[in-house]
């Protein structure tokens, strides 16, 4: 029989402590972040989709069209090509597209590039109704960045 009474006693005591804890929580300030009004700040290492880095003065991409990032990508979402530079040394980038629908943000491409030509962008609210909006042309994006920098 004592199991019966101790059950009732400990049981109701645990129920009451539970209630007190939630009661105390009831009066505490709100913890959640109201998204559309308070916009979260991304940490410096946040990995958005990749983008080209242009050197400061000329604004040309540092990329030398070596294709390392294209090979390093596990889901083959980078496609780039270039043409011979006039001066005959090295290549100039003509076309650099990222198929963001297949990208898994793993960062292998940025790591494989040893000409400091790629970095992660910081924008995270990318939304669109059309799938081909995510086939991004990086060159055009770099030109826009340069234009709005002037």
């Amino acid at each position, binding site marked *: 029989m004592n199991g*019966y009474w101790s059950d009732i006693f400990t049981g109701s005591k645990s129920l009451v402590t539970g*209630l007190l804890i939630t009661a105390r*929580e009831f009066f505490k300030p709100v*913890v959640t972040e*109201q998204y559309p009004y308070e916009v979260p700040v991304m940490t410096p290492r946040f990995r958005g989709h990749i983008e080209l880095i242009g050197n400061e003065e000329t604004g040309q991409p540092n990329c030398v069209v070596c294709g390392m990032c294209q090979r390093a990508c596990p889901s083959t979402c980078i496609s780039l090509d270039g043409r011979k530079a006039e001066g005959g040394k090295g290549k100039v980038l003509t076309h650099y597209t990222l198929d963001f629908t297949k990208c898994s943000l793993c960062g292998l491409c940025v790591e494989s590039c040893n000409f400091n030509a790629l970095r992660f962008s910081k924008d995270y609210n990318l939304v669109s109704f059309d799938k081909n909006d995510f086939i991004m042309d990086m060159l055009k994006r770099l030109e826009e960045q340069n234009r709005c920098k002037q």
Partner: protein
Amino acid sequence: MDTSIWRALIYLAGLLAFAGLNAAYLGWCERKGAARIQRRIGPCEAGWAGLAQPLCDGLKLMSKQLLVPEGVDGIIFRVAPVLAMIPAITSLVVIPFSDNIGARAMELSVLLLFALASLSMIAVLLGGWASGNKYAIISSARAVSQNLAYEIPMLLTVITVVMLSGSMNLREIALDQQGGFWHWNIFRLEHGHFLTMWIAFIVFFICSVAETNRAPFDMAEAESELVAGFMTEYSSMGFGLFMMGEYLNIVIGACLTTTLFLGGWDCPFGLTPGVWWFLIKIYILIFTFIWIRWTYPRTQIYRLLNLSWKILIPFSLANLLITAALIKVF
């Protein structure tokens, strides 16, 4: 009690308004209360602090298509939600809101209330059975066994109260407890009733939580096991009626507890009795319903039945005997 038609019409409109507003805004209170306990904000977009949220929910529910799945027992499927609402609203008739506000003070109002409560249980059973969904059938079987197990201790505690105040009429019971909280059935200092009556209050409160299928006894509508219980196949206003029925059952449970134990419209210090005290008590009790729901996990069907048969019924029987003895002695 003049029986002019105007009085009936006014009370009809008043009670329907009370039922509709309560059913809608209890949803809002629940979401706000839950949010506050979980330290978030709750609905705050629609209208100031989300006050228009119930309106939007109502419009959304009404605008959705009322889908009657094929292979379903058509008539019963449509009747069940309405059947869930009818007893909830009709039991408001006998609730004594205050001295002069009270639709009808019938002699056997306590009996009527419990008859209507079991009627809503039938609605749950029909709703679950008619929708032909396996989950719904399991949930309605659970709901019936749960309501059955919890009506017995509830009735036993009500018998003690009726014995104390000598009449089955809710108005008399409330009148008998007027004049300060020491007259309330829960404390009742004279004749030593205070010894056991608070146990009756706790037993009655637990049973009313179980009666309205609210957590921690929401076995019927257990989201994580039976998806949505007997309401799975209902969409738009079918589901809406069931939800409003559930919220109204909570309101009636709270009104009954206040009238039987907390002295109806009586002011705690016996000064200014009035309907506002009645409403304050109801909303405190409703808040505890919400508070309990967002604190505890769900019990399992065996524990639920054990709790009732092994703990609540013996306690209410003991309470019945002790009060009877005390009445006899003093």
